[in-house]
């Protein structure tokens, strides 16, 4: 039977459940992000097989929307890593905030470089995504998940979790926030400089 005193802890548990679920879903999202980036040669090979330009265009648009949309999703769901109280309260992967910064760096690279035609930029993006996935998945698996079990990984697991290692977790949160802030300034400045091309003209160029 629930009593008046139980109510605050009931909603605290609901918050922990919600944020813990997002943290677990992020593992899947990071895997999908890396997989879709590595699937680029397969997508390009299929693109050559289309006999209609319409089909090829749609195939490519859908691929880009999924691939880049998932990077955006990984970044926005990682926002809880920038909230110091949440980082201190929930057992989250220690380097989750750095992984979020990697996802944001990839988004900024996509913005300021030549897109898919620029192979060097794409290689950088893939490296950053690989790094982000490692920074998220390794502490999640060996810290958050393995730490909850009795076994040999005790000390390592404690180091890899935010609640048991706040002296690393909070500074990492602020460092990641600073990286994201600096990259955000770059993105805004680039946009303000590049905003001269009207879309109607760019749209017309698509047909030429």
């Amino acid at each position, binding site marked *: 039977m*629930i*009593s*008046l005193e139980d*109510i*605050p802890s*009931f*909603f605290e548990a*609901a*918050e922990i459940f*919600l944020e813990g679920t997002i943290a677990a879903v992020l593992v899947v999202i990071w895997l999908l992000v890396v997989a879709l980036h590595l699937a680029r040669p397969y997508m390009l090979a299929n693109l050559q097989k289309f006999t209609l*330009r*319409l089909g*090829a*265009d*749609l195939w*490519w*648009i859908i691929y*880009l*929307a999924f691939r880049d949309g998932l990077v*955006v999703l990984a*970044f*926005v*769901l990682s*926002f*809880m890593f*920038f*909230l*110091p*109280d*949440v980082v*201190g*309260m929930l057992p989250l992967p220690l380097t989750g905030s750095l992984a979020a910064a990697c996802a944001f760096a990839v*988004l900024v690279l*996509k*913005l*300021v470089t*030549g*897109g*898919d*035609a620029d192979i060097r930029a794409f290689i950088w993006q893939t490296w950053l995504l690989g790094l982000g996935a490692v920074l998220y998945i390794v502490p999640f698996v060996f810290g958050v998940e393995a730490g909850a079990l009795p076994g040999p990984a005790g000390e390592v697991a404690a180091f890899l979790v935010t609640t048991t290692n706040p002296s690393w977790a*909070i500074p990492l949160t602020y460092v990641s*926030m600073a990286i994201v802030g600096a990259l*955000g300034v770059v*993105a*805004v400045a*680039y*946009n*303000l400089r*590049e*905003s*001269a*091309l*009207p*879309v*109607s003209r*760019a*749209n017309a*160029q*698509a*047909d030429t």
Partner: protein
Amino acid sequence: MEEMDSELVTTLVNAGKSWLVLTIAALMPTFWALTLIFQFARPYIVRVLRGLTLRFGADVWWLSYVLIRDALMLLTFAIGTSLILPGLYISMPLPLFAPLSTLLLFWALVFKLFGEADDDPRTFRAVSLLLVAAASLYFVPLFFGVEAIDQAYLGEIPAFLVSATNPSWAWPILLLALAGYAATGSYIFWRFMRTLRKGTASVTERSTEAAA
């Protein structure tokens, strides 16, 4: 026993309401980030647009982008407005500058409504700068206030940045934002009516000319 049940239900409902509002407030940075990401993804979207070989594909790509970008902006505005209702804003730990943040977003929407934000670089820059300012006004008090109350090393900063613990700032900010809402809403109404009247006048002119 009945009295106890009624008290339990009231406490449960109130705690549920607080939880819902605070969860929405914590989700707002996600909406803000998505709004900013879609607004500033424009060069990337235009670059892909130029790479497409058919106008059909280009139109689908651009249409989807504009739809998602503007819908997100509107959604952020709608949720942001619900958080500045006086009963919630003053009594719950919400970001101190949230009302001003939503007001700036409202102005960005006004620029979009009456300007050509996609084809006119000046309007695009105005909308972009308003969005950056608005998002910063939400992010800073959330990260260093609402979500940093337990961080002792920040001293008095978190308490200052939270509406419920700083009513001497919260009330003037709220009243200023509500006055701004009223003025902006009135401006939109006046401008819309003026455009409508101009449209009617030109239709009447054309029909007079046709009759002559």
